[in-house]
């Protein structure tokens, strides 16, 4: 926190004539889920613009934070349950379920999501959990790929990521051409889009900690996805969120799973290195 928030705080003092000071620091609070403490602050990896990476949880209102901390109240847990049912359901021409090959997800899927996106040598591009699910469905089950944001896709992705709850995010940029995708994602992150001429960094780096309308701007971390959004009363996938942020600059939205969004996912995920996977996180 220290350095960045000091700089932001200095700006805030300069404009302290304001009505209600809408500036608010990320809270000093601990996130414990089912007895396990989440890493919500981590030292930033080398080459990161911040000293410390912060979970979006620290920027949310107390009630929202509370919902995520309590599995019984977290509506995202319903999607975890739904995902488990899908995991065990036979589908496709080969008469298999995910469980036919991967057995108990609590063991076979434990921790793996913390390392996604991952290089896919067959596709020669990074893939995320959604694309890995499609790969197994088409190649190993004789089933069709899911449509983007199909309820089953969101539930199964949530279920698989939940098996990594608490595990620190760590990408392997040495695999395949991951590094060049990271480079591309970084370029995108600092490129202004749309009529409003804003880059990801305009909001999540330059304005982190400030309010845009009612929204307390976080670092825009990906570690909680899919997240349960109270506003939508539904799970929101990462590519849905990224598209929404881009749309808000009054730009055309890239297609889900396009090279553009996969590169951005690699880079944005890296910016959250060391944070716990928080799926299903709760956001406003």
């Amino acid at each position: 926190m220290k350095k960045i928030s000091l700089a932001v705080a200095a700006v805030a003092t300069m404009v302290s004539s304001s009505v209600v000071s809408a500036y608010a620091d990320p809270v000093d609070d601990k996130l414990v889920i089912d007895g396990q403490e989440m890493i919500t602050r981590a030292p930033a990896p080398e080459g990161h613009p911040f000293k410390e990476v912060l979970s979006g949880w620290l920027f949310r209102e107390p009630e929202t934070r509370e919902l995520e901390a309590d599995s019984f109240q977290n509506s995202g847990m319903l999607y975890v349950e739904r995902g488990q049912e899908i995991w065990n359901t036979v589908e496709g021409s080969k008469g298999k379920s995910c469980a036919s090959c991967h057995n108990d997800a609590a063991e076979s899927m434990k921790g793996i999501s913390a390392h996604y996106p991952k290089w896919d040598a067959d596709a020669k591009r990074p893939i995320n959990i959604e694309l890995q699910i499609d790969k197994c469905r088409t190649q190993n089950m004789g089933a069709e790929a899911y449509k983007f944001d199909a309820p089953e896709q969101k539930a199964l992705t949530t279920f698989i990521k939940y098996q990594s709850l608490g595990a620190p995010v760590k990408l392997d940029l040495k695999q395949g051409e991951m590094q060049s995708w990271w480079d591309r994602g970084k370029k995108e992150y600092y490129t202004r889009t749309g009529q409003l001429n804003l880059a990801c960094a305009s909001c999540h780096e330059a304005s982190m900690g400030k309010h845009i309308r009612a929204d307390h701007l976080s670092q825009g971390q990906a570690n909680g996805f899919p997240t349960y959004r109270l506003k939508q009363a539904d799970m929101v996938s990462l590519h849905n969120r990224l598209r929404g942020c881009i749309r808000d600059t009054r730009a055309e939205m890239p297609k889900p799973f396009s090279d553009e969004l996969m590169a951005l996912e690699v880079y944005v995920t890296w910016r959250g290195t060391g944070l716990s996977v928080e799926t299903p996180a709760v956001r406003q």
Partner: protein
Amino acid sequence: MNLAGILVAASAAAMCGSVAFAAEIAPTDVKFEDYAVNASLTGVAGNAEEGAKVFADRKLGNCLACHENKAMPKQLFQGNVGPSLDGVADRWSPAQLRAIVSDSKKVFGPETVMPGFYSLEVGINVRKDLVGKTVLSAQQVEDVVAYLATLKE
């Protein structure tokens, strides 16, 4: 003012309006000198009341997304990405305010987060229906500037 006076004033304003339309300065022709735009973009005096509406409207200026303004206490959720605009007219002249609203990058530099409201120097992949269009019209900028000029402490 009596009725005749009002009528004369109204028709003068209407005439003025049509003349000014022809003289409207295109976004690419706006002249920035010393962090100011001295010439009106339309030749028609800005209307502060209209300007206040444009300022608050989320689909137009949406200035409150990033700025607090004590003069609009009924507007909830005022942001603070930029400085509070209380007393902004004590800090900047109308010509400077016109420059800031038209294209803030010409005043604060290329890194500023504030969008240009009468500029075609925008980001990539602009939404198709907005290509070649500015966020605000020239007259809306004049109206907003007239409104900002009322914000004195």
